[in-house]
């Protein structure tokens, strides 16, 4: 009998992670810069000022260079669900396919139609239609984020569906529940506003470089003012929506929440780790301390998770061993329930007599909520990578607060019109560009590594989601993607840097 190849799962995950990480280098800038360009374009439209025309064109050009490669990496992600996650595509395609299709029909067409007008409409369409096209591009790209995040949120918190044993898949029962799931709402708001933060730093950092070089001073100050206002508002909203996201995680993915906080033994009134270092090699149920050192905010984790300072927050050990007092089932039992559900499904599908079928179905329904656990080979596989999740989460949050402060300072001096003399702050704001990228990618690491082993929370683990391929096939495509994306990234950065050095072109008409 064939046995399951675990390295296939790992390579398929690696390939998906690679494409997602590369894709996410380009997407946040698209999401945010599209709006910044639209703001500038609108000011040009209202004032007719050639300075604003040249400002708009400069950022639009950078937008275009970044956009192309975002599209290139994006197409792979959609099709990889089919190519590398074939079983997943069938088992949840009835729900998951819908937002993907809607993304195409509702968002991508707006984006791709009006982007051509935006770039090539300067002398071809009316000024108003041209300006509106910039807005359509921004709205289209942000709408596409909405639909793909609805899809992602549903994987983390599968609502509005039921398993149909006859077709052997989950089927949608309520479209609105899928779209308006709180997980989806928070995820969307957190993702787009954090992307606006990144784009704002991109504009501020590039402009700061011009200020430091003493070039294009007026252009740089104009750009910074727009981006600082947009960035400060967005960074505050990012913190707010991040709090909402963490609350969601605590309700629906307690294991991820425990990993984010490095919490092994749950208790009432859990402190939040502000800064901390995990004990290396710490495993569940061992006697090591959780942290080498930790700076804590009293009871804050309980407040974050359940809006109650004395609430019980389960730790990894509670989720593995079970906790009777707080009605947390032991992992062993869940694995057993899962195996029972899987066996009942087999009985249901092979039974010849209707009474047997009915009994099997009852057994299946009773145990379905733990269905995915039946595929787990051991307890270890139910726990995500704790250090990666913990550090990613804490660095992301720390950077988030730093961003708010830097935006506030930049806006303050920008309004006082003394920013060009604050060299240290200008240099710091250039440094914010890579930090914003890092924090944005870390956010996805928290979301995706933290939910392992699940593709669909509790219902389908990665090992039951793959395609039937040889590991070597996936290895080959992995390396081809890695090489190709890296080459294209180098090309993109070189072109971007060159365009930035050229600076904005003076407009004469």
């Amino acid at each position, binding site marked *: 009998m064939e046995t399951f190849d675990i390295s296939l799962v790992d390579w398929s995950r690696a390939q998906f992670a690679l494409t997602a990480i590369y894709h996410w280098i380009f997407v946040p800038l698209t999401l945010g810069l599209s709006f910044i360009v639209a703001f500038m374009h609108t000011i040009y439209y209202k004032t007719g000022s050639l300075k604003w025309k040249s400002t708009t064109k400069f950022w639009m050009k950078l937008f275009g260079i970044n956009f192309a490669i975002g599209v290139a990496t994006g197409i792979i992600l959609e099709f990889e669900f089919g190519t590398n996650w*074939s079983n997943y595509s069938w088992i949840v*395609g009835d729900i998951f396919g819908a937002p993907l299709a809607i993304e195409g*029909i509702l968002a991508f067409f707006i984006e791709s*139609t009006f982007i051509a007008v935006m770039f*090539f409409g300067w002398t*071809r369409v009316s000024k108003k239609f041209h300006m509106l096209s910039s807005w359509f591009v921004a709205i289209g790209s942000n709408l596409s984020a909405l639909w793909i995040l609805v899809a992602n949120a549903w994987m983390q918190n599968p609502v509005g569906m039921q398993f149909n044993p006859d*077709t052997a898949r989950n089927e949608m029962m309520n479209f609105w529940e899928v779209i308006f799931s709180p997980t989806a709402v928070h995820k969307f708001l957190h993702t787009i506003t954090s992307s606006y933060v990144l784009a704002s730093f991109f504009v501020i950092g590039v402009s700061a470089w011009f200020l430091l070089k003493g070039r294009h001073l007026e252009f740089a100050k104009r750009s910074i003012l727009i981006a600082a206002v947009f960035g400060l508002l967005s960074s505050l909203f990012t913190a707010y929506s991040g709090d909402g996201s963490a609350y969601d995680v605590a309700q629906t993915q307690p294991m991820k929440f425990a990993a984010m906080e490095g919490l092994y033994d749950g208790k009432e009134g859990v402190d939040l780790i502000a800064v901390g270092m995990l004990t290396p090699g710490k495993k569940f149920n061992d006697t090591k301390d959780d942290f080498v050192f930790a700076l804590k905010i009293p009871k804050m984790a309980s407040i974050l998770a359940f809006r109650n300072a004395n609430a019980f927050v389960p730790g990894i050990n509670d989720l593995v061993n079970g906790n009777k007092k707080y009605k947390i089932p032991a992992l062993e039992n869940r694995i057993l329930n899962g195996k029972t559900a899987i066996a009942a499904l087999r009985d249901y599908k092979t039974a010849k007599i209707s009474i047997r079928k009915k009994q099997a179905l009852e057994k299946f329904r009773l145990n379905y909520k733990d269905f995915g656990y039946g595929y787990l080979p051991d307890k270890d596989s139910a726990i995500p990578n704790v250090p990666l999740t913990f550090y990613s989460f804490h660095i992301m949050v720390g950077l988030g607060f730093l961003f708010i402060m830097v935006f506030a300072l930049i806006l303050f001096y920008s309004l006082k019109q003394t920013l060009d003399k604050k060299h240290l702050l200008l240099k710091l704001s250039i440094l914010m560009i890579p930090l914003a990228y890092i924090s944005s990618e870390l956010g996805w690491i928290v979301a995706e590594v933290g939910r392992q082993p699940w593709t669909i929370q509790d219902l389908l683990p990665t090992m039951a989601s793959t395609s039937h391929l040889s590991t070597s096939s996936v290895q080959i495509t992995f390396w081809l993607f890695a090489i190709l994306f890296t080459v294209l990234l180098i090309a993109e950065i070189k072109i971007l840097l060159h365009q930035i050095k050229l600076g904005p072109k003076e407009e004469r008409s």
Partner: protein
Amino acid sequence: MFETLSHLELQQYWWMIISLLGSLFVLMTFVQGGQTLVSQIAKNQTERKVLFNSVGRKWDLTFTTLVTFGGAFFASFPLFYSTSFGGAYWVWMIILFSFIIQAVSYEYRTKTNNFLGEKTYNTFLFINGLLAPILIGVAVGTFFTGSEFSVDKLQLTNINDPVISRWEGAAHGLEAVLNITNLALGLAVFTLSRVLGALYFINNIDDETLVERIVKQLKRCSFAFLIFFLTFVALLLTKKGFAVDTVNQEVYLENYKYFHNFLHMPIVLIIFLLGVVFVLIGIYLGAFKKSIKAIWYAGIGTVASVFSIFLIAGLNNTAFYPSTFDIQNSLTIQNASSSKYTLTAMSYVSLIVPFVILYIWYAWKSLNKKKVSKKDIEGDDMAY
């Protein structure tokens, strides 16, 4: 409104949407066709620039049509998505790679400091123009010729090996290229994309000497297209097809199945014949009259004929994705589809499509009011 339809009617409706998106995509491959024509038409840097800027402004739309085609297929017939993409891995991967290199090439080709050099990006565009239409044609060819795969939903209950769809051929899709029917369709799509590309150039470019050369290429491509297309149609209409028994859903081979489908659905046959006639009119107007209207005839004709070819693959009790490994594992619009609820919800979403087409048409018309010319490109710092 859609709630009153039966599950089967919804499945048929969605097969029509998929067919429509597929046919629109083939129309949009004029971008790919144009990419392969550039090296044969342009004699210098400026001419290349004019040609690339003509089709280049539409590349993203073609790309989006492909992505939407994929997304809609996923939402409506997920078993196809999981079986074909996960199985015919290499065919789809090569197609995807060709689109990755296309997406950046327009934007990067003439930019200073672009790392790989203009020639490389031009080559990328050629590769995409060559491989994507041929391989997508070959992949659609398997809708009629079948592939070696198995589908067993009970496999989900095998904890150690739960994958439902399996490809039984070691080449993971590449074997499809060796089938003469698939290959004929692939080459027909490829040559058609070149015909459409040439007709689009004639419509969009303001340059007499270039148009002369385009017409010359158009005549050659049209001849090749007709040969491959007629070969495919002849093979298709005479071959055995994969029919579905309406009572027990069993799949069996039926002589002249696709010919019968045309006869049983005369409206589809009429659409097909009208489509072919329109394509021929378009070719005639382009090749002999240099008419800017030629692309409209050929474009409408392309959509009509491809649409009807898709329809006879899935409607009238036909298995649209046949398995030659075990004919009973073949995918039909009934066994591969989404639930009635999802198809109903998505049908409401599909009502947006006419609006999408409307604004695309409006934006397109506004942009194309002014043709692309050497002078136009020189003054434009956004040009590719």
